[in-house]
């Protein structure tokens, strides 16, 4: 695990990269990394996240600044700008049921090729997917998702990179931390090793590649 500055963090992310970002309507999103991505003028990123928040917050800022080429998300309802860019053909949006999306990411991080779910059968979410019968019940095969980078927001990180999360800011964060080649963490609090007791570590240190230094 390396400690890194905010600017260096974002310079590692090339244009066109795939990026998983934590957060649920902006809650639990590493806001300062998002701001730095906009500031450095990144282009053509593919984002994988729960939603695109609102235009002035979290992933919504990446939409507004036209940083994204594609968004794989479950919900864009609170971001009219995402809907506008999608309708205009400027932004490709793949809508995935929320429980399926998180399981596809989990599969990607846990060494599985995908998962079988009944969610989406007989709806537009089934389009282009394989149906598999198990014990007489139909399921959709949902393939695993991985990304080049995971941008994680933790509540507490220790000097080694052990992480714990706060309340509803946890959401996608510990799951995406397992599913990317390079895992970058921003934390509300950086503390000495031992402050987080082993039982309360949610993401273990060896998973984390970079911890962004607090300003």
């Amino acid at each position, binding site marked *: 695990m390396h400690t890194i500055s905010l600017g260096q963090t974002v310079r590692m992310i090339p244009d066109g990269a795939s990026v998983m970002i934590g957060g*649920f*309507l*902006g*809650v*639990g999103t590493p806001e300062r990394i998002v701001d730095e991505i906009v500031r450095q003028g990144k282009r053509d990123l593919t984002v994988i996240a*729960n*939603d695109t*928040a609102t235009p002035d917050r979290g992933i919504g800022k990446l939409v507004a600044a036209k940083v994204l080429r594609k968004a794989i*998300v*479950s*919900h*864009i*309802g*609170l971001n009219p700008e995402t*809907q506008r860019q*999608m*309708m205009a053909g400027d932004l490709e949006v793949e*809508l995935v*049921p*929320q*429980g*399926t999306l*998180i*399981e596809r990411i*989990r599969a990607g991080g846990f060494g599985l090729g995908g998962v079988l*779910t*009944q*969610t*989406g*059968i*007989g*709806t*537009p*979410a089934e389009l282009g997917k394989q149906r598999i019968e198990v014990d007489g019940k139909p399921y959709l095969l949902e393939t695993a998702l991985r990304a080049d980078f995971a941008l994680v927001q933790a*509540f507490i990180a220790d000097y080694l990179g052990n992480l714990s*999360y*706060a*309340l*509803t*800011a*946890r*959401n*996608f*964060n*510990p*799951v995406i931390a397992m599913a990317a080649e390079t895992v970058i963490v921003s934390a509300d609090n950086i503390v000495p090793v031992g402050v987080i007791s082993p039982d309360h570590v*949610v993401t273990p240190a060896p998973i984390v590649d970079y911890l962004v230094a607090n300003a």
Partner: protein
Amino acid sequence: MLVNLGIGIPTQVANHLPAGLHVFFQSENGLIGTGSIPEEGMAHPTLTDAAGQPVTALPGASTFDSAMSFGLIRGGHLDLTVLGGLQVDQSGRLANWTIPNKMVPGMGGAMDLVSGAKRVIVAMQHVAKGASKIVKRCTLPITSMRPVDLVVTELAVITFCDGRATLLETGPGVSVDQVVAATDAELVVPANIPEMSL
């Protein structure tokens, strides 16, 4: 009992619980034990509901990640969900997530909730812009093949238990004829329909 409430009319359910009934409310962003809106000055930026709004957590609350949250929903651990609706057809199929080319918010957790909850209740207006929302066949994309159990509107309570829309109760001061007139679906009307008791 674990219950998930959708946004809009369903949110009101929490304000009308019978005394003595203990319910845990789930917010699918990762919370069981969702409480009311915090008093002014008491909101916490990382304690929010599935609409991203500040909430409180009741004693006995727990928080978890999204994989756990949807494991609860799909895995048969959620006793009940109450959701809004755009259309319900006469076999109980619900459409509640998109109006193509007009409203494309994404399905969020709706498809998982309808497919996975043990019991699904739709709370919605009976008629919108002059058109019945209880239809013969959904013209909007459906949310799940799994039929809902019950629809509650301002005019009626309708069940779909045996695969057909069957009138259970009428709204206060509403006649059976009024319900039938406002319903596009073929409605089974048993004898002696009681009025909702509120």
